[in-house]
């Protein structure tokens, strides 16, 4: 045992693990089929014996006949329930295996994407640092360093937030006034992307405060903006943000001028889901959707080639006046 200390189940080679699982599945199916065959044989034999005994006893005694019929029903019923249970357990095990397999593949894809997301800014940072070490003193290099370090920070934040949310970490909901707060927050997030990002806001005058975790809303806005910058692939990314009150809710609409994507509906917010040409890790929009759900709201994403990306965020309006 000590010799294997530190080796978890992950150390089992995938091919060996697959062979082991295939073997166990084969044993289980063989066991189920054997039990089924044995039970059916037993059932047929019992039914025949009951029939023979019944004919021997004759039909005069109706009480005995009823008892024979009851015994037969019990044997048939028990057998059917037993077989159905076996089949249900087999189906459940198959489904669990399929789900676990899909999750493992997703995790593998996530780590590959996560590594890519770390390596790319790291490459840039190293290139800038080497240039500076060799005497290049351009301010542009510092700007790039700053941009890359922001990207690294964002990636790490997203991963930590994902771990926190998946682990059931709590949110601190309070009354958040969107007017003013939204402007300040978005301006500071947009500033990290440089002058190539322009945000226009149209907020209703009578916009109520929302009931939300301010840090979560900040993360949501940051992910959306990052998503736009990454996928728009334009020199100048324009984002339009509108907010209005709607039946006790606050609807925030986010729309960018990017290239858009053919990926549709729930696929856009699927964990570790990445488009064919996507450079992301498949976490950003998942976090947006999950954080909105955790705050009692909803996030819907829409996109089409040539029509940019649109997100509808539906918050619960706060009943109380926000603290000024």
């Amino acid at each position, binding site marked *: 045992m000590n010799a294997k200390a530190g080796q978890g189940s992950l150390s089992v080679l995938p091919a060996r693990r697959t062979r082991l699982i295939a073997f166990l599945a084969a044993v289980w199916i063989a066991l189920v089929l054997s039990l089924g065959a044995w039970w059916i044989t037993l059932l047929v034999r019992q039914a025949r014996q009951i029939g023979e005994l019944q004919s021997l006893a004759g039909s005069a005694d109706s009480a005995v006949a009823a008892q024979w019929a009851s015994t037969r029903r019990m044997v048939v019923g028990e057998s059917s329930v037993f077989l159905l249970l076996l089949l249900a357990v087999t189906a459940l095990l198959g489904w669990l295996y399929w789900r676990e397999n899909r999750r493992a593949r997703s995790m593998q894809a996530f780590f*590959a994407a996560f*590594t*890519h997301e770390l*390596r*790319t*800014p*790291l*490459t*840039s*940072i*190293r*290139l*800038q640092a*080497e*240039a500076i070490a060799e005497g290049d003193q351009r301010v542009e*290099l510092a700007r*790039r360093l700053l*941009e*890359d370090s922001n990207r690294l920070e964002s990636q790490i934040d997203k991963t930590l937030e994902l771990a926190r949310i998946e682990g059931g970490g709590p949110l601190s909901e309070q009354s958040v006034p969107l007017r003013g707060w939204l402007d300040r927050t978005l301006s500071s997030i947009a500033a990290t992307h440089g002058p190539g990002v322009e945000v226009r806001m149209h907020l209703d005058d009578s916009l109520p405060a929302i009931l939300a975790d301010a840090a979560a809303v900040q993360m949501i806005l940051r992910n959306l903006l990052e998503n736009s910058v990454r996928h728009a*692939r334009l020199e100048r990314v324009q984002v339009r943000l509108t907010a209005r009150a709607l039946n006790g809710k606050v609807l925030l609409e986010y729309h960018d001028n990017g290239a858009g994507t053919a990926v549709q509906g729930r696929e856009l917010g699927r964990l570790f889901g990445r488009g064919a*040409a996507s*450079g992301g890790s498949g976490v950003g929009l998942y976090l947006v959707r999950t954080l909105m759900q955790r705050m009692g709201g909803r996030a819907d994403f829409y996109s089409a080639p040539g029509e940019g990306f649109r997100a509808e965020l539906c918050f619960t309006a706060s009943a109380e006046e926000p603290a000024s």
Partner: protein
Amino acid sequence: MSGGAHVLVVEDERNVGETLAERLQAAGYRVTLAASAARARLAWRAQTPQLTLLDVGLPDGNGFELAGELRAAVPQSAIIFLTAHGNPEERVRGLELGADDYLTKPFHFRELLLRIQNCLKRAQDLAELPGEMRGVVRIGLAHVDFERFSAEVDGVSHALTHKECAVLRLLASRVGKAVSRDEILDRAWSADEFPTSRTVDNFIVRLRKLVEPDPDEPRLIRSIRGVGYLLTEVLRD
């Protein structure tokens, strides 16, 4: 060392691409930067690159597929893949597609520079053909044009990678004599790559599929047990 060679940098990450381009220019190369597969195609049509640095993940396509197109369009261009995915399967795939080298991000610029120099030197060696190798020569079923890095078999043209060309040329320059695996490795691979004798065998298998009437019973590229390989015949077209 650079001799003003033209390098095409295909990289969609702006900071990486711009810094690479600036630093390569400072090192004496002429550089064209393309941020997508579409721009890369335009760039190599406008000016033939001697070497292409190719990112695998591009917004409008896959670097591996683009390498195939580049190899067919500009066979003399050496290709170095730059990628953040360093798994062995991708590396092998890249090299099989005709890449001359494969560098995983993050890398040191000096290392990249060294590899660029090695690739350019190999490409230059390949370009300097002795008289008997110029024009089209026939090796078995294939009409091989070393200057164009191509082999025509039954009317179908196949682009040869630089390494395939180097191996075939080495064998063709010693017709009737055995060439050791070590010498093949020395001549076609650089010191900073770590191929094995098995790598040479894989290349030979591919070359046999091209030139031999029956690759399972090779008569043109023969294995010499314990030594290497021997090419039996080269004909002028």
